[in-house]
């Protein structure tokens, strides 16, 4: 099965990278842009069946390693169980 973890800067935390990318998008002609946030996607491939325990473990690892709760939010999607 595959797990996709999405990590994004928290709404109330300044995202300098997002601001810079937003400016570039505007200079390329994109109108009406209200915000740009740059995050990351982490893809995991596991040989294990989906289970509540596994999801709880992934959730814990997202908070401990894959994201920093001071500055980032995360969520994850499970596909192909």
């Amino acid at each position, binding site marked *: 099965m595959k797990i996709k973890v999405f990590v994004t*800067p928290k709404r*109330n*935390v*300044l995202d*300098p*990278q997002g601001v*810079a990318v937003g400016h570039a998008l505007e200079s390329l002609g994109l109108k009406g842009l209200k915000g740009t946030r740059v995050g990351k996607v982490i893809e995991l491939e596991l040989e294990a069946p989906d289970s509540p325990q596994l999801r709880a473990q992934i959730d814990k690892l997202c908070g401990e*390693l*894959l994201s*920093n709760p*001071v*500055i980032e939010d995360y969520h994850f999607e499970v596909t192909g169980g």
Partner: protein
Amino acid sequence: MAINIAVLQFPGSNCDQDAFQLFASGLGLATRYVWHKETRLGGADLVVLPGGFSYGDYLRCGAIARFSPVMGAVREHAAAGGLVLGICNGFQILCEAGLLPGALIRNSSLEYRCMTCELSVGDAGPSFNPGALGARVRLPIGHGEGNYRIDEAGLARLESGGQVLLRYTDNPNGSLGSIAGVRNEAGNVFGMMPHPDRAFERFHPSRDGIAIARAVLAAGFPESSRQTA
């Protein structure tokens, strides 16, 4: 009393020798390296986490180093009241490890900033204050991710608890409150983006690093400021 300094080395640390020299030749103290795979600190009084790019800054600065085997020993050392100093990447690691509050993100300019900064000294305890260090010090910085962030409640706690060590007089990176360095509530864990380890030789831009290192040591050993070279 002989004070022992341990300078940690992570894969990608690159200021480990600078930090070593600050304490060994700048202050004349017994100093040694401790590789990140070690699980003991060998009775060190002060543990220094040096600057660099541990684990290539992959994922986030300091995020992977935080889980190095040696960090368990650092955690125990800190919990027992032992002194810890994180410089630059070392500061980032201590924040990731939760030993210091807050986090460091990309500079607001998106530029890597390499320059000498003037810093105002915070009133951050009996050894680290303008009386001991002077109102201003000058130290070099060199970082792309030194933009200090913390939530409002956390910032209020830092300010009211006198935990801010240093502030930039001309903010180079967008840090909240122009914060360049903080200590923990107990006053034994210190972290800063500026480099005292690049400010102690005659050819360095300043020699204020010596006073900073002494102020950190004096937090645990009040007599040390008089005994060291």
